[in-house]
C-alpha cells in the first residue's frame, strides 16, 4: 500500500523521462562500442594494414571512454 502511495505521489516530469532515455542511449552506445571493438579486431584479421594497430587502439579508447561516461551518467 505504501508503495502505491509513493508511486501516486511521485511526479513524473519531462526531465525524468528524458533522463531515463539518455541513460538507455548511453547503455546502447556502450554495447555498440563493444561490437565495434570486436568488429575492428575481425577486420584487422581479414586485412592486415600498417596502421591497423592504431585504428584498433582508437576503437578501444572509444570503448573505455564510453564505459567511463556511461558509469557517470547512470550514477548521476
Amino acid at each position, binding site marked *: 500500500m505504501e508503495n502505491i502511495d509513493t508511486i501516486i505521489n511521485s511526479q513524473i516530469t519531462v526531465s525524468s523521462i528524458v533522463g531515463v532515455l539518455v541513460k538507455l542511449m548511453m547503455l546502447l*552506445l556502450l554495447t555498440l562500442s563493444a561490437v565495434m571493438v570486436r568488429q575492428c579486431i575481425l577486420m584487422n584479421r581479414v586485412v592486415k594494414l600498417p596502421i591497423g594497430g592504431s585504428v584498433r587502439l582508437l576503437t578501444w579508447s572509444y570503448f573505455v571512454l*564510453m564505459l567511463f561516461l556511461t558509469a557517470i551518467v547512470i550514477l548521476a
Partner: protein
Amino acid sequence: MAEIFNSSEQIEEVPEIRDLEKKGQFKSILGALVVSPEKTSFESQDNDEKVILLGRKHFATNFGWIALACLAFFVPFFWGEFPMMKALTTNVNFMMSMAWYCFLLFYVIEKFLLWFYGVYIVTNERLVDVDFFGLLYKNINVTQINRIEDVNYSQKGILSSIFNFGNVVVQTASEQRSDDKTEGAAFSFVSVANPALVVKIISELMEVVDKNTERRRR
C-alpha cells in the same frame, strides 16, 4: 595453391608497377591507392603471393558524412531554442549533450572504419575485394588473375570527374552476382581512385600471366 612462377620476377614484368615504384608515387598508406604496400597482408594470402596494389574508395566519397558530422556537431548549441528543451533541468541537458557527442563520435569512427577496411587488393596471383557493410556483415570476393576475361571502368557525376575516381568492373570466367545489391558484378571496385591506372595495371598483369602460362606450356 600451386606455384606458377616466381612472384618477384612477375611483378618486375609489369611496366606500370615498375615505373610507379621508381617514381615513388602512391605510397601513402591512408591514400586511396597504394602501390606495393609494405606490411600489408590478408587472411588467405599464400607465402609466395605479393600484394601489388591496395585500394579503397576515394577520400572524396567521405565528404557527405563528414559534412553531416560537422553540422551535427553544432546541433546542441541551438536546441536550447526549442520550448520543450527549456523544460529540462541543466543536469539532463548536459547529459543529453554528452550522449549526442558520444553518438556523433561513434558515427564518425564507424564510417572511418568502413572506409579504411573496405579495400580491394591486387596480388600477382589474384584479386581480392573486401567489403564491409555496417558492423556485422562482410563480403569477400576472390578471383584468379588468369580467370579474368575483361576489365573496364566508368566515371559518373561531377565529383568523380573532379577527383578522378570511378567504378572498375572485372568480368571473370565464372560470372557471379555479388551479395552486395549495389554492385552489378562480383568484382566491382566502387569509387576507385585513378580507375584508368587500376585497369591498366590489371590488364598488364593479365598479359604477364598469359605470357608466363604460354612459356610454361612450351
